[in-house]
């Protein structure tokens, strides 16, 4: 299939017969354009290029104030404690990683001086180690030099369980060693196709200064004064922080990138709600940038008329989905509902699952709710492009669904609800409380009714639904319902973590206190095999094919009914040129932001 084609193209790039841009264009043409295109090239033996910057200003500073509005303000400024993206965003104003992701998912160097590749010898061909060269001459905001010691320290800090870092999962299993002052080597316990996780991106990548945190490692981590007053290497220096309310920064005159940053001061205001944040940016222009504007498109279009700002979109891999429960939520076995010892009485018939999938009108959901912020999809895995399956397609067809159920022996009873062997097609469909979600529920319920399926809608407060509270029956991992809808963000431009959640060993049960990630409790040996193979596969082309296969297995079994591929929505002043990536945090590329005069 595409395998051969890709391979020959990589060969052409290697030989210099095709330039990198043409390669990426070709990949797009065959439906494979990839935020990870460059990483494919790197692993295929061609170096990853740094993405071209759109930054125009020719001198540092002079841009005045940049006013950011985060409707959930950051509450702490230590990235390794950051429980939500808002906290990563806040600390990323000051701290920096080795590299981050640009809007196309290409790597952008920040504190590293070279992108590791097999060519330049920094990436081991067996995928078991990667070496990073650091930029020389970088200084912390307090004037101390930045070096390999800081990188090694950050690893030691985060991997220590007593530190209670949120990023421990990234650092626990790797070994980081200093080669010299400007070189560090990361060794992985097994071949790691996605080597750009540690020290890259805003989530786990931000590097802490050793000289300020060394005394506060492990159980003393909470006492560090720098938890609330960061000293980083970033484009802006810390001035003031009021949790949940305000962060202030000023330009770093010694910043290590030429002509950057553009703005002289920085303010991040927190609090309020998304609609009024959109209003303050788009309509009245009080602020330059509004974060995560989850507002219905109608409202945004209205605000944009004659306003001072506009909406900005970034494509990532977030999918709003409906998950089907493969176990019985209504029968208790050994004090546990949705137990692995049960089978779902209705969904054990694949016809019912397939029919349900036909009843989800994605086009109407897009029109009525998501507008420009959504794309209809049949895939669970919607990005990066090269991992996206072209083998699936969705359809909305009530008659077809009805006929399917008829043929399957599900006949309408006296009350119009279909039944078979005394089991009625009655479903409980739960989700978190959130305007768009309740509207989507209503649209789907209506179609189901027409097809003779009775759907009871249930909505749970988000703080309960997404909690790991073992005592609460309404959390999503417990899944005491037939259907549930939400999304799990794809936080990095690689699907390995995301897809590993649904292997059969990860089923959420009472035994593991519902900490397992496989909440649909779907067990499929083929899927397990594909995921295990992909985890070790160093050939990027084969690896992409494996994840596409994994997605298709989910589609065939109707484990998830994907509803919408969601884009990131932000609000920006008309003259602001923000750089937003679906694969990064909003503040990740802040050094490249400027204002068009």
């Amino acid at each position, binding site marked *: 299939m595409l395998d051969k084609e890709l391979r020959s193209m990589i060969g052409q790039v290697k030989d210099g017969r095709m330039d990198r841009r043409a390669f990426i264009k070709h990949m797009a043409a065959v439906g494979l354009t990839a935020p990870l295109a460059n990483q494919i090239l790197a692993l295929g033996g061609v170096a990853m290029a740094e993405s071209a910057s759109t930054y125009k200003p020719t001198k540092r500073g002079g841009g005045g104030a940049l006013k950011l509005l985060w409707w959930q303000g950051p509450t702490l400024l230590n990235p390794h404690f950051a429980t939500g993206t808002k906290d990563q965003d806040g600390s990323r104003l000051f701290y920096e990683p080795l590299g981050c992701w640009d809007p196309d998912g290409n790597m952008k160097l920040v504190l590293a001086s070279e992108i590791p590749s097999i060519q330049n010898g920094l990436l081991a061909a067996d995928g078991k180690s990667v070496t990073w060269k650091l930029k020389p001459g970088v200084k912390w905001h307090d004037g101390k030099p930045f070096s390999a010691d800081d990188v090694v320290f950050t690893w030691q800090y985060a991997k220590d369980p007593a530190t209670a870092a949120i990023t421990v999962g990234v650092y626990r299993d790797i070994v980081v060693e200093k080669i010299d002052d400007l070189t560090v080597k990361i060794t992985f316990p097994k071949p790691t196709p996605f080597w750009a996780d540690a020290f890259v991106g805003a989530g786990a990548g931000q590097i802490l200064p050793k000289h300020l945190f060394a005394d506060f490692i492990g159980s003393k981590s909470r006492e560090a004064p720098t938890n609330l007053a960061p000293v980083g290497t970033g484009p802006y220096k810390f001035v003031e922080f009021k949790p949940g*309310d305000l962060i202030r920064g000023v330009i770093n005159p010694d910043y290590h990138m030429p002509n950057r940053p553009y703005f002289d001061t920085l303010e991040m205001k927190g609090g309020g709600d998304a609609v009024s944040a959109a209003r303050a940016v788009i309509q009245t222009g009080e602020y330059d940038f509004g974060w995560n504007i989850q507002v219905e498109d109608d409202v945004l279009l209205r605000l944009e008329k004659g306003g001072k700002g506009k909406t900005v979109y970034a494509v990532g891999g977030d999918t709003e989905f409906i998950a089907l429960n493969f176990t019985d939520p209504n029968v208790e076995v050994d004090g546990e509902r949705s137990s692995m010892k049960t089978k779902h009485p209705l969904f054990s018939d694949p016809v019912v699952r397939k029919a349900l999938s036909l009843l989800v009108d994605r086009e109407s959901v897009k029109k009525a709710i998501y507008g420009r912020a959504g794309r209809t999809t049949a895939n669970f895995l919607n990005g990066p492009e090269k991992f996206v399956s072209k083998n699936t397609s969705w359809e909305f067809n009530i008659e077809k669904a009805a006929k399917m159920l008829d043929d399957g022996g599900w006949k309408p009873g006296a009350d119009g609800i279909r039944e078979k062997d005394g089991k009625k097609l009655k479903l409980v469909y739960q989700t978190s409380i959130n305007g768009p979600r309740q509207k989507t529920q209503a649209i789907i319920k209506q179609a189901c009714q027409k097809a003779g399926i009775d759907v009871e809608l249930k909505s749970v407060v988000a703080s309960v639904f997404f909690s790991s509270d073992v005592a609460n029956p309404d959390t999503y991992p417990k899944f005491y319902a037939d259907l549930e809808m939400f999304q799990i963000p794809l936080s990095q431009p690689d699907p390995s973590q995301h897809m590993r959640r649904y292997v059969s060993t990860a089923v959420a049960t009472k035994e593991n206190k519902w900490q397992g990630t496989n909440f649909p409790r779907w067990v499929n040996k083929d899927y397990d095999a594909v995921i295990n193979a992909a985890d070790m596969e160093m050939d990027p082309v084969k690896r992409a094919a494996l994840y596409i296969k994994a997605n298709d297995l989910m589609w065939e079994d109707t484990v998830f009914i994907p509803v919408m591929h969601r884009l990131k929505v932000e609000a920006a002043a008309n003259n602001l040129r923000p750089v937003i990536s679906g694969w990064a945090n909003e503040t990740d590329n802040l050094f490249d932001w400027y204002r068009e005069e």
Partner: protein
Amino acid sequence: MSQYILRRLLIAIPSLLGISVVLFVVLALAPGDPFSELATNPNVPPEVQAALRAKFGLDDPIHLRYLHWLNAMLHGDWGFSFVSRMDVDKLILQRLPATLYVIGSAQILALLIAIPVGVYAATRPYSLFDQIANTLAFVGFSLPTFFTGILFILIFSVTLDWLPFVYTTDIKATGVRWVLEMIRQAIMPVAVLGLFQAASMTRFVRSAMLDVIRLDYVTTARAKGLGQAKVIVKHVMRNAMIPVVTLIALQMPAVFGGAIVTEQIFRIPGIGSLLISSILSNDTPVVMAVTFVFACLVVLFNLIADVLYGWLDPRISFR
């Protein structure tokens, strides 16, 4: 008298303890936990989540956690926020100025409107002024602040573009300009909250005045030939104000507690918005501290009111 005050103080201690037990148990039993966001974070292995819970003592039995909290509180340690990993008292002190400024100004505005309007309306019951005042008061306290808040924003910020609708603690100006900016950004929230409270208070003042104005001693005063103004101010108002003062005293805790809805709409970083965001993120130490401070204030002002009664009417303190 001093015995009476001592008695009231001694009663206050067990009530505060009782309140703290109730608050603590309710919070402990409430659904959700502060590490809910970790549940969907693939970087956090389950055993790390468990370790975090254990570290913050979330898995201990309730009574142990309560005793631990009480002991720390008695030593002046308010605990620390799970979400900010910062001391709770610092967090509250950071939020207090904005709350006191905005809610306090609103309270003063309410008094400045309610007392003259209520008094004047009571002296001329069923006159045109009284009827207009009454109608406005009804409209005023029927409209919730989240509605008037958004209405004000649409009129004064969006349409007319006169006032900012995002309250900021970081005004880049000094001297007179700083003061003017502080006033400018507080106009809308203070007006929304002040008018709302003025409406109900006006009704209260008016009825308190009417109760007194019909009493015989007022008629006597008038019969002696005293002027209308003197009768109203010296004879009627002084007596009518006793219940009004009580009402104001009991509303004082609200000044410290913030106004959740108004603070949310105008993004005022006050205690109210701290409380709501802490509740949403299940940050129990902060919720506990804020609600307990609030409870203390209610008890304190009740105590002050009691003492005032004893002073006004000595018979009360001997009962």
